[in-house]
């Protein structure tokens, strides 16, 4: 499929149209960017760390939303891409590669993993893609835990503070740098989703979702579109992993490849509304507020609660809480909920 864009009108105008139309984009985008830029001035040290983490989750949730929401393919490998970004960058860093190139190297590793998983499975019908993404994560954790070469040992945690090279900054400035990095990443992820919705890719995807055989018949390479989106999604997750590793300064394999990350972002996207631009952000904010309320000391309890959230959302509000903004309070009325419950029921 060709994806060139037709040049119509001035460049700026075209971009504005793609981002939701009219000069209104500037009306909310500029103040928002300004607010984010000034945020470190008002929050304390803890606040800015939380804000940076929220930005990271927005980027991750949007990355997953591309493949899981828009394409509807449950990727369970996003923790693997995140981990490859983090661990890959670490390996390149301790071998003397400069920071940005090392980060790119980590992303390249994740992209090749996405190709290895996606190439054989995305042309198949059925659940093979999900299975492959689930087991690749386990295989990579086990592989890296035993990996010991190029000065990297998977079984111990690796200190990369000196290699990242921001040691002259004090704590507040250091967190601020990484808050900005995460905010830019989240912005890029949002931009990709918005442009994607209005691009030929988005159109092709809608065609595939509505009628896959028909889409294939008019010349859309179904497997190619899916693979392309999967690779972009993996690259975004890996970039988040690389920035996270640089921010943390110490990397260990088990926490970089923690599969709970995948499920956290799935909960967020489902809660907010999969396949929508703003849904994942709603999901991220709600899950973060819940976590702040519950606290981290009850790990089992938060597992149970995230499980319950998914079950309730899937059964009663499968389009996510974004429906509250679309339909108003009516989305929570008994009639709508019971209609949702019966929507996919076996007769």
């Amino acid at each position: 499929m060709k994806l060139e864009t037709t040049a119509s009108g001035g460049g700026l105008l075209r971009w504005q149209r793609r981002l939701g139309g009219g000069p209104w984009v500037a009306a909310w985008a500029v103040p928002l960017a300004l607010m984010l830029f000034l945020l470190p001035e008002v929050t304390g040290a803890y606040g800015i760390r939380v804000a940076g983490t929220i930005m990271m989750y927005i980027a991750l949730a949007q990355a997953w939303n591309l493949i899981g929401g828009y394409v509807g393919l449950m990727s369970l490998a996003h923790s693997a891409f995140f981990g490859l970004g983090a661990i890959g960058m670490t390996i390149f860093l301790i071998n003397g590669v400069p920071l940005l190139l090392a980060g790119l190297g980590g992303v390249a590793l994740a992209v090749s993993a996405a190709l290895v998983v996606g190439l054989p499975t995305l042309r198949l019908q059925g659940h093979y893609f999900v299975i492959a993404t689930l087991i690749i994560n386990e295989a990579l954790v086990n592989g890296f835990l035993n990996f010991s070469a190029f000065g990297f040992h998977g079984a111990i945690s690796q200190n990369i503070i000196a290699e990242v090279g921001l040691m002259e900054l004090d704590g507040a400035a250091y967190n601020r740098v990484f808050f900005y990095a995460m905010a830019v990443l989240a912005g890029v992820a949002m931009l990709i989703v918005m442009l994607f919705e209005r691009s030929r890719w988005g159109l092709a995807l809608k065609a595939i979702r509505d009628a896959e055989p028909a889409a294939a018949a008019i010349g859309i390479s179904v497997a190619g579109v899916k693979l392309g989106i999967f690779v972009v999604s993996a690259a975004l997750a890996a970039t988040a992993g690389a920035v996270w590793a640089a921010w943390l300064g110490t990397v260990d394999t088990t926490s970089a490849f923690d599969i709970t990350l995948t499920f956290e972002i799935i909960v967020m996207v489902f809660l907010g509304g999969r396949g929508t631009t703003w849904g994942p952000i709603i999901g991220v904010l709600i899950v973060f507020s819940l976590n702040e309320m519950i606290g981290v000391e009850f790990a089992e309890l938060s597992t149970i609660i995230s499980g319950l959230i998914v079950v309730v959302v899937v059964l009663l509000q499968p389009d996510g809480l974004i429906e509250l903004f679309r339909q108003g309070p009516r989305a929570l009325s008994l009639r709508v909920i019971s209609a949702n419950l019966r929507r996919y029921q076996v007769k």
Partner: protein
Amino acid sequence: MSLALQIIFDALLLGGLYAIGALGFALVWGVLNVLNLTYAAFIMMGAYATYWLWRIGFDPVAAIPVVMLLMFGVGWLMQRGLLNYVARGPGSLPIALTYGVNLVIVGAALYYFTAEYRSIALPDYLRGSLEIGGAQLTNARVVTMVIALTLTAAVWWFMDRTETGIAIRATRMDMESAQLVGIRPRFIFNITGGISAALAGAMGALMAVIYSVSPQMGDHHLLQVLIVCVLGGLGSMLGPLVGALTLGLVSSIVANLWGATYAMLAGTVMVLLVLAVRPAGLLGRQFYES
């Protein structure tokens, strides 16, 4: 020589266990076209049920039928109360739902039972071992393999010779035609969910006898079950058995030569190779993927 024999015995044992698990998992996958991730929790529940039955005085092997009956009920309820509501939806909905249920059950098990590993003290008749050609084959493993083969045979008989089994196969091949001849899909789905969970329970029970019991045991075993399903293919009864023996053989060779941590990597590589070269599985015929 004795190492080779030991590898083969280990493979047979692992293969037998995973074959039962894969049989149950492939049933729901084939009939409902749903990937049931709660299967991990079902395996764990079967193991804990065996453990607690043993604690109140049951013989661990005699407990297996009781556990299977209990798990049949659990599977039926799960199917009726939850899965039937999303079965017709886009594929990501059932996966998310079953994953959520799995989180809730495993989380509850962690909360009430703690992450502590528990194991069953074997009765005397399971303790001894046979020595064949210098390799050790414990009685527990012999019994496990016999049970695994019996269950596989029982499922084959049920699916091939009983009216309900034929109805299940008909539903799997073509649901609309099955409805036309008077089969009620909802009833078939509930039974399928029940049998699937009962087989998961049996696998968990045998795991509890041979290894140990912990809340997160099912998550690991589910991955192996998935690998077996892909390797063997979904179309036949023999598929899971062949897939399980292949995985068992490769896993125990890799584990004996390089260490157990590489077994998972080997399984993944096999899955990706099979999907690239022969997506219907080593001997699978395609039923609904056309």
